[in-house]
């Protein structure tokens, strides 16, 4: 499969602070990626570099095989919807959409009109009169209707209600099935989008922490709960990512080893075995990492 983005040893430093460091990854064509991580982890910095909004301090960054900076051939293929995207205040919604129509070579006007209807967006209203959620809707419509070969959404739904978010996921999947393209979705609402994602990238403290197929992450861990002593006995020799004592009970999240019968063994020992959602797993893994760092300091 063709790589749309190739990044090697990428770094962005602001003085002594490294917002992104030592990141190497590749983005394959026509897959949906989830770019996840805590606040300030470096997700937006990374996306800003990919879309040539800022310069990397060092490292290699190729988008469609070329340096993206001031490269019309590359930038024409990208649609980047930023968190809290700004539009000229005196523009009406329709003006923004008309400019987008000019800007994006693959723009589908009929699709944008059906989205406007779905989301109930008032076309004639001025941008500065829109609510926060409506403003986010404008970004989402542009991101979808642009059908850009590389579409990047950076936390696109500030102020958007659950119904509208659901509508966004539905329309995104429907259109993606018919018009496959590369999509990077950065979000904190992991549980909501996890089923849509094919590949997961997690950034932690400016570094790439997880770069894995979503489905292989799903089977990666499980939680055992039961009598603390029994749980401790079961945990021996296994890698634990999270533990939570509760009275005489202990609940521990364990990384799955090569032993496929492990879960059955836990159940045989009288422990409760439950699966771990992608969101829980990522929360456990990222907090564990910062704990370890805290200890070493």
């Amino acid at each position, binding site marked *: 499969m063709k790589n749309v983005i190739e990044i090697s040893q990428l770094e962005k430093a602001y003085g002594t602070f490294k917002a992104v460091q030592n990141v190497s990854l590749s983005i394959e064509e026509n*897959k*949906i990626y989830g770019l996840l991580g805590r606040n300030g982890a470096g997700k937006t910095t990374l996306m800003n570099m990919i879309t040539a909004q800022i310069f990397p301090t060092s490292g290699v960054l190729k988008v469609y095989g070329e340096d993206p900076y001031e490269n019309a051939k590359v930038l024409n293929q990208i649609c980047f919807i930023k968190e809290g995207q700004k539009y000229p205040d005196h523009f009406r919604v329709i003006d923004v959409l008309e400019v987008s129509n000019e800007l994006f070579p693959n723009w589908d006007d009929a699709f944008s009109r059906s989205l406007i209807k779905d989301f109930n967006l008032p076309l004639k209203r001025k941008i500065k009169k829109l609510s926060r959620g409506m403003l986010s809707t404008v970004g989402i419509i542009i991101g979808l209707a642009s059908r850009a070969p590389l579409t990047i959404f950076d936390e696109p739904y500030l102020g958007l209600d659950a119904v509208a978010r659901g509508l966004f*996921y*539905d329309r995104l*999947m*429907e259109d*993606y*099935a*018919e018009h496959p393209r590369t999509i990077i979705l950065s979000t904190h609402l992991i*549980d909501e989008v*996890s*089923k*849509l*994602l*094919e590949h997961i990238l997690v950034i932690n403290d400016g570094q790439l922490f997880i770069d894995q197929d*979503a*489905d*292989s992450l*799903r*089977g990666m861990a*499980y939680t055992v709960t039961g009598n603390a002593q029994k749980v401790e006995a079961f945990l021996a020799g296994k890698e634990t990512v999270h533990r939570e004592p509760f009275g005489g009970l202990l609940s521990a999240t364990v990384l799955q080893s090569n032993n496929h019968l492990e879960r*059955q063994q836990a*159940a*045989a020992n*009288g422990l409760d075995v*439950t*699966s*771990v*959602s*992608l*969101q829980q797993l990522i929360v456990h893994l990222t907090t564990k990492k910062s704990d370890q760092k805290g200890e070493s300091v």
Partner: protein
Amino acid sequence: MKQLIDDGRPIFVQIAERIEDDIIEGVLLEEAQVPSTNQFAAFYKINPATAAKGVNLLVDEGILYKKRGIGMFVASGARVKAMEKRKELFFEQYVVTMIQEAEKLGITTDQLTEMIRRGEKR
């Protein structure tokens, strides 16, 4: 078809299981066409590539086969094959856990057999 996908297990495995369920329960008959990858994706709201992976798993096992340019179909003999596969799982998932729970409650093997008989009559 059931809704709800468990986010703690690989989704492609769950898709394969659902198709197997439908074949075993006779919802999908042998030689019948299986919904397309995009239909699965739309129904379960999952990534089409993930749905395709689940379908391909069953193709590899000879439970589904592909007619070029038309779609996926249930292979003849698929029902027996799927049921054999499930019988193995049945032992691990139900029988073993049932015996463990019975031991915990102090139910003897004889009492357990008695209970199974009683359950059958219902």
